[in-house]
Each structure stands twice: as C-alpha cells, then as structure tokens.
C-alpha cells in the first residue's frame, strides 16, 4: 500500500517534470507578421531577424506579409491572437502609437501589445534633391515664401501633420503629394519632381542625389550629425520610431523573456548587423521594459501632436 502510494507519487512527480519540460517554449513554429508588402525596409529587416531568432529558438519562424492601413491590418490581427508567443509582429513604433490616432478604423492602443525588444531606429528626415537651391531647412522656408507653394511628398499621416504645423508657424504654402512607397519618393526626388519630401531613412542610400535638411525627430541623424533636428529649429515636434518586435497583450513572463533573449541573440548575428548597416538604420538593441517605456513616451508625443492639430483646425 505504502509502496503503491510512493510509486504513485513518484510517477506523478515524473509526469509533472515531463509536463514542465514539454511546456518549454517554443514547441512549434512561430508566425511573424509584417504589415507591409515584401521588399521594403521593414520586410527586409523582419526576414533576417526571423531567421536569426529561429536559430536561437530552434523552431522555424514563418514570415507572413499582411499589408494594409500602413501596418494597421497586421497590428489589429495580432491583437486578436492568443498571447502565447506563437504569433509576433515586427513593426515601426508609429504603427502602434500614431496611426490609430488618425485612422478611426484602427481601434487598438499601445496597452494591447507586449513589447519584446527593438533592434534599430528609423532615421526620419525632411529631404530635398541634391540640386535644390537651398541647403538648410531655414533656407527652404525662405525659398518657399518666395517661390511657393512648395511640392512636398508624403508617405504617412504623421509626415503630413509635421508639415501642416510648420506651414502654420511659418505661413508658407505647401502642396501635399501622396506617395505609395519610399521607392516612389526616391524616384521623384531624383527626377526633381518634388521640392521636399519626408523620408523614413531610405534617403541615406542615395547621398549623391538627396540631401537631408532637418531630422524629423528629436534625435540627430546618425549618418548626418551636422543636420539639426526639428526641436532645435524651434518646432515643437518630437518623434522617434524604431523597429519593434511585438506580441499581443499579457504574454507570460517566461515566454516574454525567451523571445527577448532570441531577439537579442539574432541582433548580435552577422546577418542582422549586415542588413542594418546596408539599409542605414542604426542598430540599437533595447530590451522589453525600456522599449515599452520608449513606446509610451512616443504615444504621449503623438497624442499631443494630434491634439494640437485638432485645436489648430478649429
């Protein structure tokens, strides 16, 4: 009897251990969502990152491109998934913090996501053709007053708002030209179709043809440290966006730690470093807690921008 109880206990203990071992994350392939079509900057970074993470975790990671609403469709899809770590998303911070503010169809909030880590920063800037008659943003403003309306190429709702604020502050006239992709932006600048454009960082690949006038965030451009930032020029606009790996809200702590570690390991890998160097997005690893804090700061800043725009329109 006693022996039976003992054996029973031992078996139970063994089963418990086995159960715990079986529950070791990840035990099946992971899906990484990317909110853009294949071929862009986010897609390229996502694919190499997925490869590195997959090696660190010992499970394949399937990359699924889900374009729509500037990444909003993929982000909305993620919020509907179970927070088990098997569905993750690589997206710019702005997809989560900024776009829902200007698009009523996107109902998610930063709290609906778990941040595992971020790996690199966008390098947003207002840029112009190298041949343009102005070399700084102040000179551009003076030029626009003389020769306006300036032709300004935009990619995102944020890029429009930034210029609308400047337009009011400087009383210059601007015509907004909506574009589909960074490629169209580069094409148009090289063909001198636009006077100025918003770039998320893609302009850095064409230093001979495109010049940066001002960093469109509170941070200096890593490759162009002499170019001033918008706050430095007296515009109350701050915004940074990073490449962030997200999960749905409330992912368990151990799964979260495992994924953060996987991103960290992939980040150190040669492939990720090579792609980040080539795309000109400065590599900067930020762990989950700190990256969450950065996202919330960004959210507050984006909200402020929207409120000021709303106030200005009324």
């Amino acid at each position, binding site marked *: 009897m006693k022996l039976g109880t003992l054996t029973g206990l031992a078996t139970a203990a063994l089963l418990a251990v086995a159960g715990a071992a079986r529950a070791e994350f990840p035990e099946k392939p992971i899906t990484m969502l990317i909110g853009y079509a294949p071929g862009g900057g986010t897609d390229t970074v996502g694919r190499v990152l997925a490869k590195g993470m997959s090696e660190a975790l010992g499970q394949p990671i399937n990359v699924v491109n889900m374009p729509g609403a500037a990444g909003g469709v993929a982000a909305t899809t993620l919020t509907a998934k179970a927070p088990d770590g098997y569905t993750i998303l690589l997206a710019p911070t702005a997809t989560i913090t900024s776009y829902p503010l200007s698009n009523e169809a996107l109902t998610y909030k930063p709290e609906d996501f778990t941040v595992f880590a971020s790996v690199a920063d966008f390098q947003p800037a207002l840029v112009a053709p190298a041949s343009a008659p102005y070399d700084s943003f102040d000179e551009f403003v003076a030029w626009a007053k003389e020769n306006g309306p300036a*032709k300004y190429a935009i990619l995102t709702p944020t890029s429009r708002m930034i210029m609308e604020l400047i337009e009011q502050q400087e009383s210059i006239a601007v015509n907004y*030209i*909506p574009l589909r992709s960074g490629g169209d932006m580069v094409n148009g600048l090289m063909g001198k179709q636009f006077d100025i454009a918003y770039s998320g960082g893609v302009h850095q690949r064409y230093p001979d043809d495109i010049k940066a006038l001002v960093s469109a965030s509170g941070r200096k451009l890593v490759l162009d440290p002499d170019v001033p930032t918008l706050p430095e020029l007296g515009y109350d606009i701050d915004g940074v966006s990073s490449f962030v790996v997200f999960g749905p809200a409330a992912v368990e702590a151990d799964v979260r730690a495992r994924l953060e570690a996987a991103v960290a390991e992939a980040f150190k890998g040669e492939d990720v470093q090579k792609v980040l160097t080539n795309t000109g997005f400065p590599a900067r690893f930020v762990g989950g807690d700190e990256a969450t804090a950065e996202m919330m700061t960004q959210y507050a800043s984006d909200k402020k921008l929207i409120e000021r725009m709303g106030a200005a329109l009324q």
Partner: protein
Amino acid sequence: MMTTMLDPLLQGFAAIGTWSSLGWIVLGVFIGYTVGAIPGMGKGIATAISIPLTFYLSPIAAISYLIGIAKGSTAGSAVSAILINTPGEPSSAPTALDGYPLARQGKAGKALRMGLYASVIGDLVSTIVLIGLAAPLARYALAIGPVEQFAILLFSLTFIGALASDSMVKGLMSGVLGILLATVGLEIETAVPRFVFGQLELYEGLSVIPLAIGMMATSEMVMQISRHREIDAQTARVREVKVSDDRLTLEDWRVSGPAILRGTGIGVFIGILPGLGASVASFMSYGVTKKLSKTPERFGKGAIEGVAAAESADNAVIPASFIPLFALGIPGSVIAAILIAAFMIQGLTPGPLLFQQDAALVYGIYAAMIVASLVLLCVGLVGQRFFSRIVTVRVRLIVPVVLFFCMFGTLVQGGSTFAVWMMIAFTIVGFLFKKLGYSFVTFLIGFILGPSLELTLRQSLPLLNYDMANLTGHPIAIVFIALAALTAAIVALRARKDAAARAITLTQTSREELQ
C-alpha cells in the same frame, strides 16, 4: 565602347560558369515556368516562397535564381492561358484570346511554341537593352513623373478599352465597373475608408489575385464544366488533327515576326517606366497588332500573331523593369522590389555605386540573365511536351485539379480565407460577365490601372498647383493626352458610322416591309 562593354561581360560569364551557379539558374527557371503554368499561381507566389532559400546562397546565385523565377513564370503563364483558357496572371489574358482558340483547333503545340519563342526573343532583346543602356536610359525615365504617368495611363486605358471589346458600350461599362471596384479601401491621400463596410480586410482594397483568379480561371472552369460534353467532343477531334498542322510554318513567322518586334519594343518602353507593369504592355501590344493587321477579324479566333504580340511584350517588361533598379537603385516592378531585398540581404546596395564597387557582380548577373533566357527556351520546349497533353484530357479531370490550385494559390497569396471567399464571389461575377457578353478584359484593365490612375491624378493636381496652364511644362504628358483624345474621337466616329449604317439598313427593311 564595345570592348569596354564586352570584356566585363565575358568575365561575367566566367564568373557564373560553375555548376552551382548554372544549377540555380536552371532550377529558378524550371520552378518559375512550372508554377507559372499552374493556373492560380504566378511570380508573386514563386518569388515569395523562394526568398528564404536565397539567404543561404552566394549573391550571384541568389539573384540569378530569383531572376530565373521571374522570367520562367512570366513565360509559363502562357501555358495555362493557351491550353485551358485560364491565364496564370492578368498579363497573359491577351495570350488566351487567340491561344485558346488555336488549342481547340488542335494547334496547341503551334501556339505554345510561338508563345515561347516570342517570350524568349522579347526577354533576350530586353536583357540586351538593359545591359547596354541601363545607365543612360534610367536618367531619362526619371523625367517621367506623376503627371506624365497619368497621361500615359489615360492613353493606355482609352486605347485598350477601345480595342478590347466588340460592343463599345459593354466594354466601357465593364471598364468603369473595374475602376469603381478598385476604389475600395483606404483613400490614398487622406486615408478615408471607402466601401469597406467595417471589414478590416477591405482596408487594403480588393486584392488583385483572388479577383483575377475568380474572373479568369475559376469562372472559366464553371463555364467548361457546364458544356463539358461539347468540349470533350472537340477534344476527340483535336486528337485527330494532323501533326503537320500543329507545326510553326514560315507563314506563321512572317505574320508574327513584326508582332514580336513591336511587342518587344512596347514591353521595353513600358518596363522602364515605373508603375505601369506587364499587363499594360501585353494588352497594348495585342491591341496594336490587331489594329495594324489587314485581317483584324481573325483575332479572337486563333490568330497566331496575337499570341506572339502578347507574349513578347509580357516578357520584355521584366528585364526592362530592372533598368531603374540597376542604374539608380529604384525598383520599377514588384519583382524588382523583391530583388532589392535580396540585394540588401546579400549586403549590396543596388544603384550607380554598385557598378563602381562591385562591377564584377553586376556583369555576373547580366551574364546570368542571358543564360536564363536560353535556359528558358530549353525548359519551355521540354515542358511543353508534357503540358500540351493537357489538351487531350477530359474536362471533368481538369476542372477539379485547376479549382484546387486556384483555391490553394489564393489562400497562400491572400494569407486568409477571406481571399478565398472573394475569389468565389468573383467566380460568379466572371461567369455572369461571360454569359452576358461583357468584357472581363476591360474590367480587369480598369481594375488594375484604376488605382494608379487615381493616384497619379491626385499627385498631378498639387504638382501642377491645380492649374491646367502648368501642363505646358510637361510636353510628354501633352502628347499622350492628345493621343488619348484622338483614340476616343476615332472610336466615337466609328461608333457613329456603325450606328448610321445600322439605321440605313433598318430604314431599308422597314421600307421593304411597307411595300
């Protein structure tokens, strides 16, 4: 000049002259051709599934492999268009217009071979243009901004719309319906959702793949199953056709030669311009060939030069769309965008610097592209031996297989079952279109070009500062707008003449009746 060009190219051939490089080119072309030949699957899916594989290859092998896929699938999509009237991609739709009638007459082999030769010639010539003129041409292409693109699109739409349909009213109706459906989704400038009915999947707009597969492939299958006895009887006759009738004759070459040259020229021109794409080129080439033909009434009933015109233009677009990529680092097509990612992963930045920093690699890729053209010829000729037997298979065996691939392709490319439902909905629309004699060709062209037309118009207005007078700074745009107006005028005059002719006949009949 010639030697400075040829020397590095010869070294390029030496660089890819290894078994592994050649192996990857052959594999790429083979996979592309096969996937392209399966209805419902196209280059999008073939390249997407291949990208992870290229992580593990050397730069030259990876890029050659992807280019092989692009070339192979573009040529391969003619196979299903000709054999079962279900183009693998919209750009092969004009191929089916004459290819399928030829196949039903027992001349599938002839149509397939002409399609392949036209593809290879278009591809090879376009590749040579890329090698020789990439840098100078790309600079000119930059002068084509949104205003010029809008004018060219307007002209393409008018021209294709005027030619693609027998009844102008029905053609216009389908075209406008296509444009209307293309407005679904987030509006480009202010991100206002249009016709989305709260469905998040619709925010990106109706995706072209399920729509095209539904309109072209699955609805055709429904049509075929509804008259399978008739088709099977035809098939039995097809088996009895003499082999000699199925060969390409000198006469075929005589009528197709000019069509191929023209198609290649149109394909190269459209390919260099960003944002227009292979569909515009193949429809335009088909239209021009029909227009210039002394016997336009043969078109749609098995005119071999129709196949040649469409396929040469379709394939010539691919290498030409790499011109802005190689010369400036700007992607001219979806395939080029995917290639940029492949370059990046391999640590290379496409653009003018690449020629200075890594000239050997660029010429290696050029050499690989020429080799891929020749491989395409071989793979195509071998593949056709197997594929052409499909014509003799009974309808009830073909239909389930095609439907399966269409479902599968839609699911994989659309990423959700929503795309499959959409495909089914458009199967019904396509079936009704065919039954009622509405042109799905103008519908599709409207749908594909509609968003670009709207976008470039929205871009042109602020660029011109909302003043028509500023058009004077865009002479190229003026030329194309004038051409579009001319086309519309000719069509309207022709329609009035037809109506007048009909009225005269009517009056005559009524007079006879009175007497």
